[in-house]
């Protein structure tokens, strides 16, 4: 019988441990929400509809609003005494200060976070893993140099580093990706370096060296696949952490430029009104926390299945 792969065993554990099942559910839930956002969202995320509506308030919106490609006037019921407005059901989570539908913004916000968090983590992994593989495999002065650079960057308090970087390069999607890479790659380098040093003297590595394979091939074909187990777990934890970071940057006003919704930015935009309209700030908080919880529970489950070997 073929031995189940790491992911296969991971999936098997999901069945056993209901907690990692919950984690997988939360992540899949938000991924589906992000993918189907244009269909799922009742209104366009940036359209001004009716300001300061509480949850479940009737959605009386301008007749010219575009809803999923159609004109609101054509798909919604008319309002008796106002021809410029139509009744489109309800604002399930209410609206924000300038009248945008919160549910739609949270749904489209899932797109933002699930685009930037995995991409940033992946980018950090490419840089960090490359550094770690070379440092761990080559050793010597290359290792010393790379390790020192890593330690210097790691000695910065991470959010201080982000704030300084963003204050220099400005806030934009690309700059957030670069800042996350710069700040996270060192930690990844450390893990990969340790794992690589652990296996660099195994027989199959020596065999590959004897065959005269080039270093890059040994690193990518022989070393990397054999250290992937702990890295998948770490990737899961880190993606949750990067999600928090992107949320925090948005909250601090250093995140993606408006008006497109991101959950941290939504909290920042609405928190002045939080005492009167708590729903505006609470829902984005619930959204980001549930996604991070999903990643963390999933990582726990994968970790347990890895430890069982």
């Amino acid at each position, binding site marked *: 019988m073929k031995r189940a792969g790491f992911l296969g065993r991971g999936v098997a554990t999901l069945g056993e441990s209901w907690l990692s099942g919950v984690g997988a559910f939360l992540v899949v839930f938000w991924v589906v929400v992000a993918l189907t956002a244009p269909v799922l969202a009742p209104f366009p995320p940036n359209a001004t509809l009716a300001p300061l509506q509480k949850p479940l308030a009737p959605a009386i919106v301008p007749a010219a609003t575009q809803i999923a490609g159609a004109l609101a006037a054509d798909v919604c019921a008319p309002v008796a005494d106002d021809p410029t407005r139509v009744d489109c059901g309800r604002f399930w989570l209410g609206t924000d200060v300038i009248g945008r539908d919160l549910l739609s913004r949270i749904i489209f916000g899932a797109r933002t976070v699930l685009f930037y968090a995995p991409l940033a983590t992946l980018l950090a992994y490419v840089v960090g893993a490359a550094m770690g593989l070379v440092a761990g495999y080559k050793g010597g002065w290359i290792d010393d140099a790379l390790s020192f650079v890593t330690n210097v960057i790691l000695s910065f308090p*991470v959010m201080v580093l982000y704030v*300084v970087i963003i204050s*220099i390069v400005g806030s934009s999607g690309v700059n957030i990706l670069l800042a996350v890479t710069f700040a996270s790659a060192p930690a990844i380098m450390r893990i990969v370096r340790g794992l690589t040093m652990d296996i660099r003297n195994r027989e199959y590595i020596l065999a590959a060296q004897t065959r005269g394979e080039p270093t890059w091939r040994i690193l990518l074909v022989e070393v990397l696949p054999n250290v992937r187990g702990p890295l998948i777990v770490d990737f899961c934890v880190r993606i949750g952490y990067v999600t928090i970071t992107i949320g925090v940057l948005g909250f601090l006003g250093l995140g993606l430029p408006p008006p497109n919704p991101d959950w941290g930015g939504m909290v920042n935009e609405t928190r002045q009104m939080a005492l009167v309209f708590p729903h505006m700030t*609470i829902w984005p908080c619930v959204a980001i926390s549930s996604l991070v919880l999903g990643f963390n529970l999933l990582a726990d489950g994968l970790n347990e299945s890895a430890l069982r070997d």
Partner: protein
Amino acid sequence: MLAVVARRLALMLATIFAVSVLLFVLLEVDKDSVAVKVLGPFSTDEQRALWLEANGFDRTLLVRYFDWAGSILTGDFGQSLRYKRPVADVLWPRLAATGLLGALTLLAVSVLGLGLGILAGANEGRLLDRIISIISVVTTSIPEFASAVILSAVFVFWLGWLPGTSGMVAGFDAWQLVLPVMVLVLYDFGYIARLTRTSMAEVMRSNYIRTARLKGVSHRQVVLKHALRNALIAPYTVIILQVNWLLSGVIVVEFFFAYKGFGALLLEAALYQDFYVIQACALIATVVAVLSQAVSDIGYVYLNPRIRFA
């Protein structure tokens, strides 16, 4: 032991030096952008050139770096563009305020994290362990700004027990510290608890604990007298390392609660491009972080007799 400490301190100084070079490169090498930041976006090219010349920016990078580092070492961080006062005058009171917030947080995190971790680790696999583990993973998944919103909603908006801002405008008020500390502790204690649990569970499975059990020592005695001391070595070093994380956490919490501390100062400086304040804050934060890392490493050697007597 002495050799270890000396080597660690040397590494610390090297790191601080490297960090200062990195910050200098990030912030000062592009001198035109420095002039724009200091003089504002509407200054003319002529004004900028004059200012750069008057402030010695035409010298070589090496000279400029040592001049810059020298004035910082003597406590001269330059002039805040926003407050129109020396940076040091603004910085030190802010740092003291954050020190208070951080000390209270570390204390609470230690008590809560170690306590729950020991309880969970000493009862590995039982219901109590599962419950504590779930609480830990849930609380560490909630970003600080989210728990600040949620706790404010409960304690300020709904119950009305606590003040919602911590500006301390009418003098010092201990109640205003409660929510910021609560938010920081909530995010961090789970990590310490999980770590302590792992360390404790590992010790509880070791041979000398089994011997103690076989001698007929009670569970309580085994935990308190035999296991605890060894199980706390790893968490202790990590708690000191939380200083580094706290310097990040306070940015969010101080911004949210309008607490006049170091984190809020750095953020304001970043948003207003208050150049010298950013520089000073980043340097101070890193020096504190590097110091705490050295203390943690040296403490680990000191606490662990297997290394101390090696």
